[in-house]
């Protein structure tokens, strides 16, 4: 197998690792994947993957790490697998991909969107901008609770985080 093919296989495996609470998005969609380092070792490869935590106190981090290792273990060419969380670069919400944005919406979570320095939130159900924040803090560290005054649905939004804060 060429290194390129192996890298693609790793990428595909990482894409099967979903957010434990939001199965519509993978760690790639959320921009949590940072780098992979492949080194040849006798008869195979050693892999080191670095991931970026979203919020530090998030209890899902350990589960994500475990699931990532389990997904990568399916690749026989990998002899050793090392998955570590690093903090530099810091994860910011603009790392979420287009596909991630769509995945969050389909799950009923408004993706974080900052326009000209202010937080823009559209209802993930009807697209209305006529929404109110009920609580900046939601069921998990990364989410807030909102209410759509147009379609009268409560919903959640992912908090924007940026280094400019």
């Amino acid at each position, binding site marked *: 197998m060429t290194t390129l093919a192996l890298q693609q296989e790793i990428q595909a495996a990482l894409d099967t690792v979903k957010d434990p609470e939001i199965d519509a998005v993978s760690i790639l969609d959320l921009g949590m994947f940072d780098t992979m380092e492949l080194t040849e070792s006798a008869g195979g490869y050693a892999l080191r993957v670095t991931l970026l935590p979203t919020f*530090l*106190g*998030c209890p899902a981090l350990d589960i994500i790490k475990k699931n990532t290792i389990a997904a990568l273990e399916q690749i026989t060419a990998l002899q050793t697998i090392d998955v570590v969380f690093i903090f*530099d670069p810091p994860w910011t919400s603009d790392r979420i991909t287009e596909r991630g944005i769509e995945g969050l919406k389909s799950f009923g979570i408004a993706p974080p969107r900052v326009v000209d320095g202010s937080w823009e939130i559209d209802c993930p159900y009807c697209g209305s901008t006529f929404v109110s924040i009920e609580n*900046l803090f939601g069921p998990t*560290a990364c989410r807030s609770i909102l209410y759509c005054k147009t379609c009268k649905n409560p919903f959640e939004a992912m908090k924007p985080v940026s280094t400019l804060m």
Partner: protein
Amino acid sequence: MTEQERTALAALLYQLADDDFLYAFRGSEWLGLAPHIEEDVASSSIAQDSMGHAAMYYQLLEELGEGKADALAHVRLAHERKNSILVERVNGPGYYMETPEYDWAYAVVRNYCYTLAKKIRIDALKNSSYAPLAVAAVKINMELYYHLLHWQTWFTQLYQATPTARQKMDAALEQVLADFGDMFDYGEHGDVIEEMRLIEGQGILLDRWYQTLTPTLVELDVTLPEMRMSSNGRNGEHSADLNDALSTLGEVYLIDQSAVW
């Protein structure tokens, strides 16, 4: 790094770690008791974030060779702790499982004063000469933004509420400031901490804290009570409240220290 410098770096990290560890614990004791359900969600979320910050600092200590992060958090005795006195204080009389008579005004004032101090320190730590600490500060700062916004809102609104609210806030402010004297103190290794440029001088940070707080106090027509130091937590001098907190916090961990979680 000389041995003396390594000791000073560890001392600063212990102060940061123990501060957030105890602050998170006191916050978590409010779970189910906060004034309304939305506040319950918010303050427990803040406590959870803060426990994450403590875990990150304990991780840095582990990387420095101080021991396992979990053990650093749970096994160290009160006289080895370097947190400020403010964060170890009980929320009020009573025990949260029985008949707590916690004081929400005290919670708001303590959390606001502490979070503002934390913000000042985190901004300074972004320029720390110890790169892993500077990186951690950038990460923590993003979450801190929401915490400060939250406690600033409560602080301002309660001060502008009823005369009783104002009276309670004044009393709480008096109580918080009586313990605040060691907040920016770096303890016995302070000289080396500052020489190494791990963080700016304690006097500079304290001035910055006053300056940042002043506009809010002026707007609310509040006079800041005198700041005192009841004892210096940075040197391991603590109140009995800390012992109780540590025995509750470590209760499960200490049943079986070799268990895998």
